């Protein structure tokens, strides 16, 4: 029974939504968007679940870490608070044997960040218009946190890509086979074509060889072979999505609901 109810709901909702895609008349026309709004509402409530889990896991790790650290400090006698303070970096950052309490200081930072942001946003601390205003108004604490911490942290993480692209391409682009060599050559043309270097490199070409001008070549690669490949992958993916969705709607695929009855 526990498995059948969700399967029946999936079947009915899936079938109705597919049919609704072909009926513009009220009430079917809006079914799809209404269901996606319902999903968002449920997801918002589920966020409590996630937030709760975050607090529980990191709270437990923090408490356990502090407890184990204090125990360690007490070992061998002496004035343990002093020992705790002196060896604080060891206790707080990965020194503990106990995995479940290790790195407890990071858990503390996570919790502090979570509650500070929640507090600033929920109570609209420092908002120029107080409770009435938008939480993102300039001047508010939430906005302050956002601008001075969230913004740079996000940009930093994204900026890592530039470095990782370099190291990944260093390893990946080896002319080991014919295919790899073609890939390598293509990568060079695109890399050059996206920069002024490409323009300078082949600017001297006569106009009847215009096609081989690197920026033109790069545009051609993007607009012809790349496009063909992307289309093929997209068609394959769409068919995969259809088959997967049908398996889910018909209840053939049910692993995501938990294991099979067998």
């Amino acid at each position: 029974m526990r498995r059948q109810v969700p399967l029946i709901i999936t079947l009915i909702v899936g079938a109705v939504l597919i049919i609704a895609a072909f009926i513009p008349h009220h009430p079917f026309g809006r079914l799809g968007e209404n269901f996606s709004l319902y999903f968002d509402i449920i997801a918002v409530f589920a966020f409590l679940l996630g937030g709760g889990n975050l607090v529980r896991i990191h709270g437990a790790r923090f408490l356990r870490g502090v407890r184990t650290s204090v125990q360690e400090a007490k070992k061998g006698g002496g004035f343990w608070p002093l020992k705790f303070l002196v060896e604080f970096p060891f206790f707080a950052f990965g020194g503990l044997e106990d995995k479940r309490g290790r790195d407890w200081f990071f858990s503390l930072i996570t919790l502090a960040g979570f509650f500070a942001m929640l507090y600033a946003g929920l109570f609209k601390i420092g908002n120029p218009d107080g409770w009435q205003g938008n939480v993102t108004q300039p001047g508010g604490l939430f906005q302050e946190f956002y601008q001075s911490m969230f913004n740079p942290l996000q940009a930093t993480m994204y900026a890592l890509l530039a470095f990782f692209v370099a190291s990944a391409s260093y390893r990946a682009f080896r002319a080991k086979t014919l295919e790899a060599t073609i890939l390598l050559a293509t990568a060079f043309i695109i890399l050059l074509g996206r920069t002024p270097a490409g323009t300078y490199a082949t600017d001297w070409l006569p106009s009847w060889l215009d096609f081989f001008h690197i920026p033109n070549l790069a545009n051609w690669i993007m607009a012809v072979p790349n496009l063909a490949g992307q289309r093929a992958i997209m068609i394959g993916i769409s068919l995969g999505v259809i088959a997967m969705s049908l398996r889910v709607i018909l209840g053939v695929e049910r692993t995501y609901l938990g294991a099979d009855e067998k």
Partner: protein
Amino acid sequence: MNRADRLSSLLVALSPAILILALFPAFAIPQTTADTAAALVGPPQNVRVSDTKGDEGGSITVTWDLSPDDHGGADTATAIIGYEILRSESAAGPFQSVGFAPKGATRFADASTHDGVGYYYQVVASTAQGGAAAAPVGPVMSSAQWFNTNRTNVLVIGLLLSGSIIYYIASARRGKKLFIRRIAGLEAVQEAIGRATEMGRPILYIPGIQDMDDVQTVAGVTILGYVARTIAEYDTKIEVPTSRSIVMSTARETIKSAYIAAGRPDAYSDDAVHYVTDEQFGYVAAVDGIMVRDKPATCFYMGAFFAESLIMAETGNSIGAIQIAGTAMPAQLPFFVAACDYTLIGEELFAASAYLSNEPKQLGSLKGQDVGKSIAMLAIASGVILLTLHQVTRVEWFLRAGNWVKDLFLLN
């Protein structure tokens, strides 16, 4: 500044006002401008109005043939800027503007109508010096339809695809043997789990960063189910950080069931799956932290990924983990291919659960997919051949046939 300069800057400053003054009569009293501007440009021809097909009402489509002067250069004062669409509830007016279509356009959908009210429309070819209006047409009423005829082709193709998938599922169920090609990435799953077991290190499983309403996440969680079954047998540790609460709950349920199925419910702990944050880069920072600290022997990335794909996969590579990725995000595939040992490309991700389960029912659905591919290949090949023949022979029929094939797959 000399006098000429001053005069020209005055003209530039006043030009918006001049423009508005020039256009004003076209909008307010088009009937009269039709006479004065008729000498400058020809009005649009053959104006037709009809209820917009396949919608839920509230829209009327106006179509027309281009004014004979539409092709004129853009710089002269008498060149056509575009077409103003005017509407009234009576043939005598007054007409009010409901929209503007750019030069070269022959169609406009007025989406601000009320169902059941009769409307008259007038199309004016606008120039900087005035407009040339076609005679009003109407009345026409908008209404809602019970079937979207624009999607007939989608319905037919959809039925064909779903029908063949269901047919092959049914025939597989009856015991028909099906051939499925080898997928290297999936063959390697067992080996990757075995390696983690031997090394006594955990396995990291990332089910993408999207919610359960993304099919890729469903595929990711499904594969997690199969991975968890093996892990339960080997008694290897698994860690699943998630970026969505609902995915967390679903993944827990899946892993728990896998442990129960493997006969080891006692070995399961809820802490294996935990929520991190919905925030993309916050999530990837946490996952990188887990990698660097716990040094998992194997990393799985199965689901929907964005820019974080390479950040995770490169970090995984730097700690020497075996990495198997699968995603239907074409933009992230190159990154996974470069940084991981195996990558499931697009549809392979969706095929994975069927492949791993080895259940005939599931494998049947893969066979059904091939019918879709055959249709796509046939359509592409015939379209290319027809259009090429048209280019070579200049026979009109080939072009028409080619366009007909194209329209089969077009959403109108």
